[in-house]
């Protein structure tokens, strides 16, 4: 176990100054996520335009450094992507956190992937995995707009 790997500079920085925090104007899709164990919650808003591109994305919520950083980095990377690309990135990220050693998608640039890989430190902290993944599950739900509230229990 290695706290340094978990709390890398970039995570602490995003955790402290999260990007895209707030409720974006003119969003047309949103979803709420909730971790009943700890009370962390997140609300993801996005604007998917006619070309099914993520024109804008933001989040509201409170949580630990990991969850804030994860939401912050996520929104940064997803902005401007098409919905299919976004879904691929989400899946790739969740797969990496769950089991894969690396990210596999060809959509993100290398330095963006490096940013995401900073979150891989949670793999050694099973109870913290939920912190890193909650906003991603919530984004997926917003995109599918099935209105179902996401919980990370289980």
């Amino acid at each position, binding site marked *: 176990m290695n706290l340094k790997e978990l709390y890398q500079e970039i995570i602490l920085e995003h955790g402290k100054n999260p990007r895209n925090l707030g409720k974006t104007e003119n969003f047309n899709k949103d979803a709420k996520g*909730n971790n*009943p*164990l700890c009370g962390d919650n997140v609300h993801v808003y996005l604007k998917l335009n006619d070309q099914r591109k993520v024109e804008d994305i933001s989040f509201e919520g409170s949580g630990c450094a990991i969850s804030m950083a994860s939401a912050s980095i996520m929104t940064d990377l997803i902005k401007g992507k098409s919905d299919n690309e976004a879904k691929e990135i989400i899946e790739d990220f969740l797969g990496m956190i769950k089991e894969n050693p690396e990210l596999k998608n060809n959509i993100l640039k290398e330095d963006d992937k490096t940013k995401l890989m900073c979150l891989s430190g949670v793999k050694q*902290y*099973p*109870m*913290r995995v939920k912190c890193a993944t909650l906003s991603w599950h919530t984004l997926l739900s917003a995109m599918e707009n099935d209105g179902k*509230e996401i*919980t990370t*229990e*289980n």
Partner: protein
Amino acid sequence: MNINNIRKEFPIFDEKIQNNDLVYLDSANSSQKPKVVLDRINDFYSKQFSNVGRSIHYLAVAATNLYENTRTSVQKYINAKDKNEIVFTKGATEALNLVANTLGQAILEPNDEILITELEHHSNYVPWHFLRKSKNIKIKFAEINEDGDIPIENIEKEITDKTKVIAITHLSNVTGAVLPIKEITQLAHSKGIVVVVDGCQGGPHLKLDMQDLDCDFYAISCHKMYGPTGLGVLYGKKKWLEQLPPYQGGGGMINEVKKDRISYGELPNKYEAGTMATAQVIAFDQSIKFLESIGIDNIIKHEKELIEYGQEILKKNNSVKLIGNPKDRGGVLSFTVEGVHPHDIATILDETGVAIRAGHHCCQILHDKLGIPASARASLGVYNTKDDLDKLNEGINNCKKIFDL
């Protein structure tokens, strides 16, 4: 399957009970526990203890993983489709109360009928009786035949348009009858009826395959399956557990709690309110492993041999009357002795270390039907031998001597 090796795994057989070797024939009541289970309890408490699911420190994470491992083991052992179909309860009785209560809340209307059988244990009758009181539900009883069996026809003929639930035992704890759950479920489902199985005796004695049985609920008593006391399992089909309301409320089963509203958590948390029987769940994994190490087919074969042997010697013993003669008998030999009350039999047998149960075994309806207030019951576990049954027979002969028969 080497019975001597198996017996050695159970520390209690090293003890003298009032200077006698223990002849334990009360496993339908509760089974003895193998050492692996006891060691696991001890190890968990002394080296790894923490509450599960709540904290995120090392011990809590480890305990949570161990706890969830048992859920997976149980899922596999009973061949459930999904691990979230496994709910831990304090016992089979609670599991049956949970089902009756939540079905009562969600799908039952006044005058709906619940069909149970004359074989049912009070734990699979009283919870439904509560609904009779609170919701004016009707309870019907499928009758036993002269063999102490419930042929499927006896079920079929009690079914009406109003029948919403069939609640039925897998294996009678008195007559030993094994009921055709799979066929009953097929019949019930063809009429949209929910099937709730009391698997207390099925658990230790039969092969459990939920996907094959296809019943909607199945209640298990862990302490009868070589596991710790204070633990049961409710298997419930996901569609039901998702749809039904929660049973008990408290920590761990919620999603969001506000002053004016509460939303509930997802499976399996929804049905596991409050601190659960953590150590017991974790140790039950060893009970499953113990059962698997012998193999249920071997257990069934061994117990069948014993049942046949027991029937044979008891039938030869005049004045003994076996209760029931079911087509398929598992685990249990109940009987009466002409001229000696079951309580007296139990006391006299006990004097030589032979532990049986006497009474109505929580089946008053059945005993009323049989016209006897009580019976004596020898029930088997994987550790029993023909020698145990010989000692039972000797004990019965001793009763006859004392009562001058």
